[in-house]
């Protein structure tokens, strides 16, 4: 019997992608830093360390140094392509900007990438007197100039000079610090994992997908101990698993640049320099739902959701799994 078209549509769900790669953090060709660097707009970073009760010493300075970001109100888009802005910020570090409170499936959205951008501000032919520059400025200024609230962060590569606070009028710019929370989870069921068994091994280890779902359960405070006959929920921790007495969870929320995440990842790898009870730890990064790009310039959209996130599982021996997930209107992650 063939199902009629309307009934078939009732059972369709939007497509999504979850890719996983495995490598070693000290391998010369490991692309872990490149993948982090290419994912420009991050709103939430969490790391979970089993068998750990407090913030490890090796991470203290990185957490203390998590950089500020800025909220710029009513900024005209053409201000980001003026030569003064380019020379002061774009060329002297990496500058990230993303429109704030714009929904990519409804509103205009703009973003400034630190590397190549749609209007290439680093292009030598884009000098103040060139036709190209004049045309771009005209397009952005003429008729109704586009104005947005922007979230902005600037990673200064050490050059002296102006700061964002002194560049923009005081009533237009506000400094914000990412919110950081810590918690210690008690008696946590954790999946047993083997770094070279991505599909899991029956009775011996869990798969990458099971780990990904388990981590979602932990970060959403879902009970891991439901029985199969439970009326409410049948979700339970994948098998095999062990119970750890404590696990440390840290969450950073705000406008977080890739450079911060790279430093965090490096320090999490250093955590295993000394012997530890933990067999693995995780670092999870959520992208902005309304970012126009996911990795590099891969298009990102919002169909029923705006997910673009990635998760590292770093093992004691510094093998790692990297899982990257995107939604429907997205190109495949690199």
């Amino acid at each position, binding site marked *: 019997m063939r199902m009629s078209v309307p009934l078939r*549509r*009732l*059972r*369709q*769900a939007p497509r*999504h992608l*979850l890719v996983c790669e495995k490598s070693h953090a000290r391998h010369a060709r490991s692309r872990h830093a490149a993948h982090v660097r290419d994912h420009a707009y991050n*709103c*939430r970073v*969490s790391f979970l360390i089993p068998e750990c009760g407090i913030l490890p010493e090796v991470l203290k300075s990185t957490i203390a140094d998590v950089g500020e970001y800025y*909220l710029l109100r009513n900024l005209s888009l053409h201000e980001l392509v003026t030569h003064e802005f380019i020379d002061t910020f774009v060329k002297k570090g990496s500058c990230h900007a993303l429109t*704030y409170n714009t*929904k990519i499936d409804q509103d205009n959205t703009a973003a400034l990438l630190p590397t190549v951008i749609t209007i290439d501000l680093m292009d030598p032919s884009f000098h103040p007197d060139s036709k190209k520059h004049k045309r771009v400025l005209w397009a952005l200024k003429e008729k109704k100039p586009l104005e947005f609230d922007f979230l902005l962060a600037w990673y200064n590569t050490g050059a002296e000079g102006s700061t964002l606070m002194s560049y923009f009028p005081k009533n237009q710019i506000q400094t*914000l610090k990412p*919110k950081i929370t810590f918690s210690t989870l008690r008696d946590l069921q954790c999946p047993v994992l083997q770094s070279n068994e991505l599909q899991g091994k029956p009775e011996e280890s869990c798969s990458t997908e099971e780990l*990904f*779902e388990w*981590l*979602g*359960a932990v*970060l*959403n*405070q*879902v*009970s891991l101990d439901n029985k199969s006959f439970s*009326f*409410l*929920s*049948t*979700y339970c921790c994948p098998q095999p698993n062990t119970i750890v007495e404590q696990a440390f969870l840290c969450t950073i*929320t*705000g406008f977080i640049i890739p450079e911060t995440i790279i430093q965090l990842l490096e320090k999490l790898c250093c955590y295993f320099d000394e012997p530890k009870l933990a067999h693995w730890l995780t670092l*999870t990064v*959520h*992208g*902005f*739902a*309304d970012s126009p790009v996911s990795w590099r310039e891969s298009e990102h959209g919002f169909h*029923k*959701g*705006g*997910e673009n*996130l990635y*998760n590292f599982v770093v093992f004691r021996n510094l093998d790692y799994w990297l899982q990257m*997930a995107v*939604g429907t209107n997205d190109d495949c992650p690199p």
Partner: protein
Amino acid sequence: MRIVLLRVSPQQLVVTALRELHGEVGAALPVDVLTYEEKTLSAILRVTSSGLVKLWSALTLLGFYQNRRCAFRVLQTSPFLLALSGNSRELVLD
């Protein structure tokens, strides 16, 4: 206007919604209530991807429960439970 908050069984709510729109077969759709927070009246539900449209439509169109008006708002959906722990659309800046 006085608003009365009921002690509701989230599972019962979901089954009722499914039955009203999709009948007995719809009501048999397995749905997990992964979390339920009474303070905010919010929950995380889990359903197979083939049941997403049925569940979403049933909840959206449920206007009354136990003779009282109600409304469901879907805040976020994702095939990844992990994605639900970070929603930039709810980002609050100080």
